[in-house]
């Protein structure tokens, strides 16, 4: 028996042990008579321990195991966009064609359509010296995205021939003097970050259109954010809003160990939704990975790597990519499940001791970089975390918070009050404002950071006052503090609350966010003046024009109207003083 064929010795759920095979760590192997795909994750002497990406029921010891010499890789090239894959990049549509509506096993499928012809336009010429990562041509993959064809990272040399025309992804479009043939498809091992020239400090926000995020807790392009929250608090709705509205050029959405219907919803919705930044269907910029909770756990473990490798590949083309992983806790649990089958020494709550380093390695793959082609590109990572019982003292939440610079903490209490997004404004934070302030000053308003500070200060004061109110009721507070409470209420109900399903208000541009914040501060100032002149708080609060100012955000063109609405409010508030 040759060394690339061995036999199964043991099967325990998704973990299979083989003997007689000389495999390398993380090598892909084929397990059993049905040739199920697996990956070597541990080697002890003659035994190779394999995690299998499909159900292992019915497999017996003694069945063959074949090594392939490859590590777990993805196919990268034109055809990724609008696709939905499982955790190991098998297109779900192909699986449906082959197996019907239920996912059975033993089917291989290429990540890219190998037959489809793409119109390749060469941008480099014969005789050019090219390096790994350099762009040599383009393919218009969707309306909005030009797919750039690059020299594979490890190749370089002088171009011997290159031609434009219709090619499929495995045909050679360019040959180097040393004989290297460049095709539109590259393969890349998912557990290895793709190379770039250098990392930059982020200085541009990822604009999400969600007021609480952009205004109070901004995320930078190339940064990483964690969204922990108990079930039903809004992790998925928030992630989906980001996938819809954020100003990334490309989105990789990973449904990792979550509900099937949520992925179906994205599939139903995205082709019909228009990207506010390009005016084209959102689907055109989206790649989806769906390895739902009932699909094999080993493939769930792989899904986040598959996703981030695809994201990096588009970053290499100079794009700003945003990646959402819902939920990283399910990924961590997949690690825990495999680790426990390996009988590894468990760390905290049964998670493997390497949990936090895996989390760190994953989030480290985010970043704004200079690509090998000398362009600016970024991968922003937003990970949902599902802490048991909503208690974030657990290892996955803590491991995540140690790395990410943005924490959007979802709060069951707010969700129960139907305050959406249920992001707690007191416990959440972003460490980016310092590096992003300049951008906000230059692009939105020169006093943007100061306005933000005033708004967050009001929210902090409110929290302190609420404690007193709990004891004595709000009528017992002095008038100026009662006004502060009203202003804070306005911040919460008008500014922070934003229904993710409202056709208009779900997205709010930063310019509009600033105008709304200013409107609140104007209300505060005018109310103070009027009350000093004898107006009653109740009358000031009840002015009709303020209600109109607040309601008008649900209609189109709000940014243009807001100035007039604020003026009307100012006049009406001033009149309340005169009436007394």
């Amino acid at each position, binding site marked *: 028996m040759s060394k690339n064929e061995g036999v199964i010795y043991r099967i325990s759920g998704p973990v299979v042990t083989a003997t007689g095979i000389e495999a390398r760590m993380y090598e892909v192997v084929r397990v059993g008579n049905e040739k199920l795909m697996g990956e070597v994750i541990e080697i002890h002497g003659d035994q190779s321990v394999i995690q299998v990406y499909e159900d292992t029921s019915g497999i017996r010891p003694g069945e063959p195991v074949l090594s392939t010499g490859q590590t777990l890789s993805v196919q990268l090239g034109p055809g990724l966009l609008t696709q939905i894959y499982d955790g190991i990049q098998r297109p779900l549509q192909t699986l449906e064609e082959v197996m019907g509506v239920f996912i059975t096993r033993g089917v291989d499928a290429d990540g890219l359509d190998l037959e489809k012809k793409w119109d390749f336009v060469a941008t480099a010429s014969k005789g050019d010296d090219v390096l790994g990562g350099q762009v040599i041509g383009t393919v218009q993959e969707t309306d909005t995205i030009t797919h750039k064809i690059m020299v594979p990272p490890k190749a370089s040399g002088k171009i011997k021939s290159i031609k434009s025309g219709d090619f499929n992804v495995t045909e050679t479009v360019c040959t180097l003097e040393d004989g290297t043939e460049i095709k539109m498809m590259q393969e890349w091992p998912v557990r290895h970050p793709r190379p770039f020239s250098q990392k930059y400090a982020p200085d541009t926000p990822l604009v999400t259109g969600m007021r609480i995020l952009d205004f109070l807790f901004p995320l930078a392009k190339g940064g990483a954010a964690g969204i922990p929250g108990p079930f039903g608090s809004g992790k998925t709705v928030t992630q989906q809003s980001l996938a819809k509205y954020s100003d990334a050029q490309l989105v990789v959405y990973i449904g990792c160990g979550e509900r099937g219907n949520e992925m179906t919803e994205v599939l139903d919705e995205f082709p019909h939704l228009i990207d506010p930044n390009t005016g084209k269907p959102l689907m055109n910029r989206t790649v989806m990975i769906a390895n739902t909770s009932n699909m094999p756990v080993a493939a769930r473990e792989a899904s986040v790597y598959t996703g981030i490798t695809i994201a990096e590949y588009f970053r290499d083309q100079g794009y700003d990519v945003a990646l959402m992983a819902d939920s990283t806790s399910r990924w961590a649990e997949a690690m825990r499940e495999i680790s426990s089958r390996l009988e590894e020494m468990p760390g905290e709550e049964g998670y493997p001791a390497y949990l936090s380093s895996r989390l760190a390695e994953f989030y480290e793959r985010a970043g704004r970089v200079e690509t090998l082609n000398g362009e600016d590109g970024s991968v922003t990572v937003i990970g949902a975390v599902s802490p048991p019982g909503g208690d974030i003292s657990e290892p996955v939440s803590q491991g995540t918070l140690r790395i990410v610079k943005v924490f959007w903490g979802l709060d069951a209490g707010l969700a129960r009050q139907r305050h959406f997004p249920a992001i707690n404004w007191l416990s959440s934070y972003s460490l980016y404002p310092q590096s992003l302030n300049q951008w906000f000053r230059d692009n939105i308003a020169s006093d943007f950071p100061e306005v933000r500070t005033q708004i967050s200060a009001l929210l902090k004061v409110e929290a302190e006052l609420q404690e007193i109110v709990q004891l004595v*009721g709000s009528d017992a507070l002095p008038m100026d503090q009662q006004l502060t409470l009203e202003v804070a209420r306005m911040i919460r109900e008008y500014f922070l609350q934003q229904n993710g399903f409202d056709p208009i208000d779900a997205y709010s541009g930063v310019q509009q966010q600033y105008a709304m914040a200013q409107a609140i501060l104007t209300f505060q100032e005018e109310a103070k003046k009027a009350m000093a002149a004898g107006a009653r708080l109740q009358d000031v609060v009840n002015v009709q024009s303020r209600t109109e100012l607040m309601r008008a955000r649900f209609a189109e063109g709000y940014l243009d109207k807001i100035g007039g609405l604020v003026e009307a409010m100012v006049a009406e508030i001033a009149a309340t003083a005169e009436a007394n």
Partner: protein
Amino acid sequence: MTSKEYKTITDIKGPLVFLEKTEPVAYGEIVSIRLSDGSEKNGQVLDTSDDMVVVQVFEGTEAIDRKAGVKFLGDVFKLPVSKGLIGRILDGAGRPRDGGPEIIADENADIIGAAINPYSRQSPHDFIQTGVSAIDCCTTLVRGQKLPIFSASGLPHNDIALQIARQAKLRDSDEEFIVVFCAMGITAEEYNFFRSDLERTGALENAALFVNLADDPAVERLITPRLALTAAEYLAFEHDYHVLVIYTDMTNYCDSLRQIGAAREEVPGRRGYPGYMYTDLAMLYERAGIVKGKKGSITQFPILTMPGDDITHPIPDLSGYITEGQIVISRELHQAGIYPPINVLPSLSRLMGSCIGEKTTRDDHKKVSDQMYAAYAQGRELRGLVAIVGEDALNERDLQLLKFADIFEDKFLRQDRDEDRTIDETLNLCWELMTNIDTKYLVRLDQELIEKYHPEEKKA
């Protein structure tokens, strides 16, 4: 093929039997164990290697000794399925329990069940009217949804589940559900309650029951829901039925899972439950839904009792992370004599948005539901404040809201066990109750709706 009998048991521990020197045994293979008194037990392979095989024995290992004979039956666990399942009562391992004949199989279906390809699912969107106001208005049920009842011991979750099973229908349609009922470790008394209710209403003829009771083997509970769901899938996707699966009590199921984990000396996760419990539960709950090209559907109503009324306990917690919402039963409301004691505040239907509105229920549904919810939430919060500062400290708005919370519980939540309210009746009731609050405080309603529906502001 008659398979070989091995007498090579080395260890017996909890529900597990370990044996050696076998020919290659498949992972998941079904096992039959013959005891010295001639009786038989069944099991399944949990771990297999050249040296050692671990078998989980469904009926428990009592009376098994090292001389027992073990046969491997060459296949994974399968349920014989056919339309003949309808009207039958089977035990927790799928054998007739009603004295009737064996099921004549159209096919033998693997009970583990393959995952539905997410690309092949169809989003559920058909409104199911349960006739229970709290559910129809606030946590609307959709056909193909998995919506558990989070209850606790001593609360009337069974009555609610049965009321839903009796009353659930699509609006303006006579299409009925067939019920697949799955009992896991419930008492004989509870089971008789279900059975006689299904019998009384004639639903039993249109139901399939899988029954594992409290004194039946605990490990068998791990397969009972898989049998029930396999039957449901067959009826829904091969015969176009709309199937309502009620299973109770998930807490007993999870405890069996914990028992196996402990016997295998696995590293436990939270509160001793196995780390893979989320995945295991998902493999049940995710078997709800609708798929492309098939007429039938599976709607799931799992019932679980929260140990210590604690919603953060791993069983409700992991369930809530998988299911599409939850209906939470409240001890406090039950003690106040309100049936159904549904606490709408922590309850949620994640699919509600897709099935309510002008075309399906009524144009005012969403806003009315939001307003009822908001007013009740504020009213309940004020109860806490009043306990400290007294009613005198409240302004007029707060007083109205405080009173509304009582009205909500007494008039809206409370209904009879056989009271079947249409969605129109439910929404009209909401409007009538909201007349107890000044319209200027009904900020979630817009003027248009107020003029259309408000009993006192209605324009002719």
